[in-house]
């Protein structure tokens, strides 16, 4: 289990406070980039007619994802416990291959870099990367 240090948690909470106002934009942009740059991820969304950045399905899903990330920030002291329901959802219903969590995480980081280039320093980057990896691990908890 990725252990987040006290510093990591502080950095994540502080950075999240800065970006959460633009949460929807970040989520939507990240999902759109993921679908465009890693086309294999589109396989999970074959039920959407429109998978472009402007599609309402993509935007809604971006909001959903960011709400999940925000929830994870609030539950940063117990991600496994806090994200149990989401883990069950991803394990039994969505069955998303966990490799894709890494892909979405990367795109979230890219969007954060484009939006807050001066705040997204290497130190913030490493803590956010660790945090997203911990979230991914918590989401994979119920897979097997």
């Amino acid at each position, binding site marked *: 289990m990725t252990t987040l240090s006290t510093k990591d948690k502080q950095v994540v909470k502080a950075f999240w406070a800065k970006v959460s106002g633009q949460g929807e934009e970040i989520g939507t*942009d990240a999902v*759109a*980039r993921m679908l*465009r*740059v890693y086309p294999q991820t589109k396989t999970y969304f074959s039920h959407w007619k429109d998978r472009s*950045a402007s599609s309402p399905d993509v935007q809604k899903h971006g909001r959903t994802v960011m709400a999940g990330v925000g929830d994870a920030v609030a539950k940063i002291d117990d991600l496994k416990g806090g994200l149990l329901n989401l883990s069950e959802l991803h394990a039994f219903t969505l069955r998303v291959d966990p490799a894709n969590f890494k892909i979405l995480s*990367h795109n979230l*980081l*890219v*969007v954060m*870099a*484009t*939006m807050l*280039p001066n705040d*997204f320093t*290497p*130190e913030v*980057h*490493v803590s956010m*990367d660790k945090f997203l990896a911990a979230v991914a691990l918590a989401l994979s908890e119920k897979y097997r």
Partner: protein
Amino acid sequence: MVAWTEFERATIKDIFSKIDYDVVGPAALCRCLVVYPWTQRYFGNFGNLYNAAAIMGNPLVAKHGTTILNGLERAVKDMDNIKTTYAELSVLHSEKLHVDPDNFKLLSDCLTIVVAAQFGKAFTAEVQAAFQKFLAVVVSSLGRQYH
């Protein structure tokens, strides 16, 4: 043989014409050493890499960052022959430097983020796709001569 669209060729050349190798190179390498600290294993003789501040102020890291960007430029100048361009460098990284090729991907992710930070909104999903495709070809070519 990689097929490049006109958009991809233009995008790669555009990005490289707009980045300062002395800024982006060091920034990307520093970020890699901070975010993925195990990559420091290859820079034992670079002196103080003890913390982020030390890494970011280290002149050897900066110099090497610039070297890497100049190396990437070789691929930009001949996008249809990236495999051949990097054959020798691939042997070097494998036989002499003993770099685990997984690290190329880590550095390339950091470079993507540094470029994204510089370009902001102009770094659209389309541009990101082209840039990451280019870096994937570079990474693949660098790993090709490993055995």
